[in-house]
């Protein structure tokens, strides 16, 4: 699984098999803009080309590309979570 947190992917090519997740950070006190991908290609790869004895998960629905972003609340465009006392 490829997981990106508060990441910036720029002009990249990624070959994957399984799941991809783009996510926002979970650190309070910092901005939360989510991950970004610009000019990037996510290409599926056949794992059997690399691992001949690869065994697939039984259910096809387990493969997912997800990109999750928390929307901005403040005028600056960032969700800023204060520290908890």
């Amino acid at each position, binding site marked *: 699984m490829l997981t990106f947190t508060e990441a910036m992917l720029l002009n990249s090519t990624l070959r994957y098999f399984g799941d991809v997740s783009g996510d926002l950070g979970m650190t309070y006190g910092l901005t939360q803009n989510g991950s970004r991908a*610009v000019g990037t290609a996510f290409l599926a790869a056949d794992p059997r080309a690399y691992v001949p004895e690869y065994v697939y998960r039984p259910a096809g629905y387990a493969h997912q590309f997800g990109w999750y972003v928390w*929307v901005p609340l403040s005028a600056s465009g960032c969700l800023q979570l204060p520290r908890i006392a």
Partner: protein
Amino acid sequence: METIYSWARMASLIRYGAFPQEWGNSTPGFTHLENSYVQYLYNVQVGSSNVSNCTFDGWFDEANPAFAPWAANSTALPPAVEFYNMETLRERASLTKLDHLEAREGRPVGKSRGANGTARGPTAVATAEAPRLHPWRLVSHLHPWRLVSQRRSFRRRLERRAERHLRERRAESSAEGLAYGCNVSDSLILYAWDVDLLRSSVSRSTFRWSAEGLPFPSSWAEAPPVNPSFWVDLRTHEPSSGFMQSLNDSLVCLRPKVDGADEQNATVENGTAVFRTSIEHVGEPLCTSTRALQHSKERAQHRVDSAV
């Protein structure tokens, strides 16, 4: 100066579609997926993201176990592409989806049917807060903040704290209480079976069923889940939406009738506004001779070639 700003904003609107003002006029700075090509294996779930000039294309190949005949799971939900609002949608959407399914089933779906045969109550379904019913997707659909109750509690504490901390700023902001869905523009979405557009905005984009010849299990064509198979629930005039949620200047090419499954229908509901958008089936005129679609495909192919 104000005029310059207005023109800059207008130009950005033309390029990127409707934007919440709270994101300012630096629209490219908040494009989460831009000029990108996504070759997906089965499901695509995009929550509250700004997507511009992208292509989503399924890996429709025998090497993909999700679509291989020998691996087709008779209990699996069909693959879906979903654009939705993370913050406000989940609970209501799950119930709406349940409403559809229960109306079709004629009985409470969540009480007796689980995709893996296990019993699940409606409370469990509602608690999972996802618009679809498969257990894996119930989990995978959730944002990590919501995966465990502990994190939910932690997040509630953060929100309460933020509510107090940002009160003054919110009082000056028009964004108080607003929520934002996805903003999809100038994109091509080649889908395999289902599409959900929920509380989001779509402009100048093409949705096309592209799984011709794809073997599929009979469960995909049974109830549930059959429809809404192309589900458009944008709630355009919802007061809490951060920007106008509508479907504009787009083309939808639905799945036609194929062996073993009736043609796909678009379900457009709950005050969804659709402007200058054509909804047809693959094989009908607009869906067979669309220069824009061809252009988009060529553009996607170019990106793949460049990547290779």
